[in-house]
């Protein structure tokens, strides 16, 4: 296959990082991307019936793997995983541990309101004195895109969002982030919060050794702090079905263009 855009080579070369670094990776659970989206309780709750739960892809593919790469480059790194949610999050966090990470923490709390979730993470992170906090760019269920920035405000720590590359040089991070219509490279001293997306790392599959090892890694449950929710879900609904496709003969693409201009008024 021909490659016209360079593959990220990061992770392979050793980064010069400060030793004994502590990284916190935020892990959330989401329905599998093929899950049927349906609601119960008068359309006020997502129906988990028959739904397969997965690690939010941004957390699994990018932020966790990049943290693991940093540890591979320097074994003195400690990786902690945190999830805020009920006991049903445990299979997800075990799977994350199977990919890598030293220890996991679950804060027992309903995860209905981003603010409450962020406050739990912030207070946990504060006591852990982390050098780096990684989140995904967003969860693929509620598409909040909020937790990283909220934690940054709660802890008054610098925040870089939508990171596509991450390098360390001593106590300094060099982060490439997406901006509208391009990319920007920025630098910041640790401690730092980074929200991660595609480019940061390449997806990995847990191996047998990882899966076996994850069974004995510590997973601690912590009681939530009490915080007042700022929002509540009022209801859900599904988009209206499409009316049906209008097919145009492959011999007459100009007819399609005419319809787009005159009927759809789209061009």
């Amino acid at each position, binding site marked *: *296959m*021909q490659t016209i*855009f360079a593959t990220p080579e990061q992770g392979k070369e050793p980064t010069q990082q400060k030793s004994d670094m502590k990284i916190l990776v935020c892990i959330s659970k989401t*329905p599998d*991307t093929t899950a049927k*989206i349906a609601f119960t309780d008068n359309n006020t709750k997502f129906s988990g019936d028959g739904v397969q739960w997965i690690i939010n*892809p941004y957390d699994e593919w990018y932020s966790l793997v990049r943290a693991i790469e940093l540890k591979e480059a320097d074994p003195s790194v400690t990786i902690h995983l945190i999830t805020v949610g009920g006991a049903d999050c445990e299979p997800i966090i075990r799977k994350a541990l199977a990919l890598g990470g030293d220890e996991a923490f679950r804060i027992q709390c309903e995860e209905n309101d*981003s*603010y409450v979730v962020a406050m739990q993470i912030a207070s946990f992170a504060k006591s852990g004195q982390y050098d780096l906090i990684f989140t995904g760019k967003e969860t*693929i*269920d*509620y*598409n*909040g*895109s*909020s937790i990283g*920035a*909220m934690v*940054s*405000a*709660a802890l*008054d*720590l*610098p*925040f*870089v*969002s*939508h990171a*596509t590359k991450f390098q360390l040089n001593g106590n300094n991070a*060099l982060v490439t982030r*997406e*901006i*509208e219509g391009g*990319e*920007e*490279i*920025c*630098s*910041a001293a640790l401690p730092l919060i980074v929200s991660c997306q*595609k480019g940061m790392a390449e997806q990995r599959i847990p191996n047998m050794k990882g899966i076996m090892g994850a069974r004995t890694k510590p997973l601690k449950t912590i009681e939530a702090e009490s915080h007042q*929710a*700022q*929002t*509540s879900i*009022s*209801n859900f*609904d599904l*988009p209206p079905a*499409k009316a049906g*496709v209008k*097919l*145009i003969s*492959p011999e007459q*693409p100009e007819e*399609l*263009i005419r*319809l*787009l201009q005159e009927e*759809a008024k789209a*061009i």
Partner: protein
Amino acid sequence: MNILVYIELNEGKLKKAAFEAACYGGDLAKQTGSTANAIVFGETNEDLSTLGAYGISNVYHVINSATYSFDARAFSKMIAEVVQKQSSDILIFSNTITGKSIAPQLSVMLKAGLVTGAIELPKTSNGFTVKKSVFSGKAFSEINILTEKKIIALQPNSYNVSKGEGSAQVQSMETSSPEVKVKVESVQKVSGEVSLTEADIVVSGGRGLKGPENWGLVTELAQLLGAATACSRPVADVHWRPHHEHVGQTGIAIAPNLYIAIGISGAIQHLAGVNRSKTIVVINKDPEAPFFKAADYGIVGDAFEVVPKMIEAVKKIKQQA
């Protein structure tokens, strides 16, 4: 009530999303019998008083050393100061990369409930509920904001821009200049490209195009239509196209007026990110491709034959125009 709209500049220019946010704020002001003001950071050659035609009464323009490059934390602190000074109750942002990295910070700093990705004006008759798309476009949800102060980040391409009359009062405003901890070292812009989330038209290619050497079909059609280009995930994964073009559930979610999908099968994860497009056109040689179920117009045919003819047809109508 007092509404404050954060207006984004891109290289000193007002962005399309900024006009959408201004109109949204202006319309919300009308709905609630209040005023909408705007805040702009950094140098610009634009005449900011024109925001008045979109519903804005006063523009507070802040220029200091912290506004020259983007540090989310520093920007949030400055906005919080303006909110305090103006006693604003409702903040409006664009749900862009910038908006997403500052609106949630203000939510914490001001104890103001936040909804990101709003697609409609809030319902304010009984409480305050904001509609957003969830599950990457597979569903919608209405969210109640329970706090006194409220923040909404408006999804780009979701709110109509209408220009009226009027001119806004522009005044420069001082804030403290917070320490900039995230320093921008270099910027790489793909020049001349239409931004994907703001584009009216998006032309997108999938694995059906066989290889990057055939992308001229997509880019030429896009250029003729003034469209942005996008791709399916596997195409970005094998680096035929850059990552930032990847749309779908694990890429960028878009809602253009017109989405043209060429050689894309229409997997559920792809549809999730594009099904809020107003009109969807699918070119695929397989009549069973699931994308046709989500399409408004379709051609069952070989892209290598169909697309060049589409390009010719567009050229013709552009010549007539």
